[in-house]
């Protein structure tokens, strides 16, 4: 059964600061990325909370297989498909239905799991489409979600 996000109105999440080397000066600076703390689950098993990149350029959710294994998924038993990204790399992914948790927003969704990609990505199908609106506030370094 698909559970839609509970009505919370609107909330914002600050971008996450990562160290990065400035390409012009060579100095290490804070580089802010739209990454939010999420948790996934299956039955009564929950993963640790992990940061996932809110990625409007991704078609679907893509998580490292290791997070799926944490919640007891037999990764390769999922529906096998392919994802292609920049660099024309194509990887195998395995789709599963999981519980998804962002603060007190909880819903079931589809996510793809793979062994090659390390950064968890939140895509349009299965994440963005659970909200009425997702806005990037670059100047404020915040993502705003409207439920």
């Amino acid at each position, binding site marked *: 059964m698909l559970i839609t996000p509970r009505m919370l109105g609107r909330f914002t999440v600050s971008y996450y600061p*990562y160290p990065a080397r400035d390409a012009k000066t060579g100095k290490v600076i804070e580089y802010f990325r739209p990454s939010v703390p999420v948790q996934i689950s299956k039955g009564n098993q929950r993963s*640790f909370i992990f940061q996932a990149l809110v990625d409007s350029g991704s078609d679907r959710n893509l998580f490292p297989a290791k997070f799926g294994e944490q919640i007891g998924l037999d990764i390769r038993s999922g529906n096998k498909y392919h994802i292609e990204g920049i660099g024309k790399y194509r990887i195998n992914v395995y789709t599963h239905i999981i519980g998804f948790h962002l603060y007190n927003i909880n819903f079931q969704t589809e996510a793809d799991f793979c062994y090659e990609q390390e950064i968890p990505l939140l895509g349009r199908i299965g994440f963005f489409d659970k909200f009425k609106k997702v806005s990037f506030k670059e100047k404020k370094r915040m993502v705003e979600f409207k439920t």
Partner: protein
Amino acid sequence: MAKVSSNILLPYENKWVAVSKDGKKVVAAASGIDALVKKLKGFEKESVVLTKVFPFDAYYSPNVG
């Protein structure tokens, strides 16, 4: 979620880290998710936040491969 300073991540380039819920310190680090989770045995699932510290010298754009 507490405000995090990137300074605490400086020693962990290209590692997976677990940051305390208050965002003040890295409680464990490892080269991969599996190794990190092993180090977190006994920790509550909601007591830390895991993240990959990106390489410092590259911009990130999802590159599946």
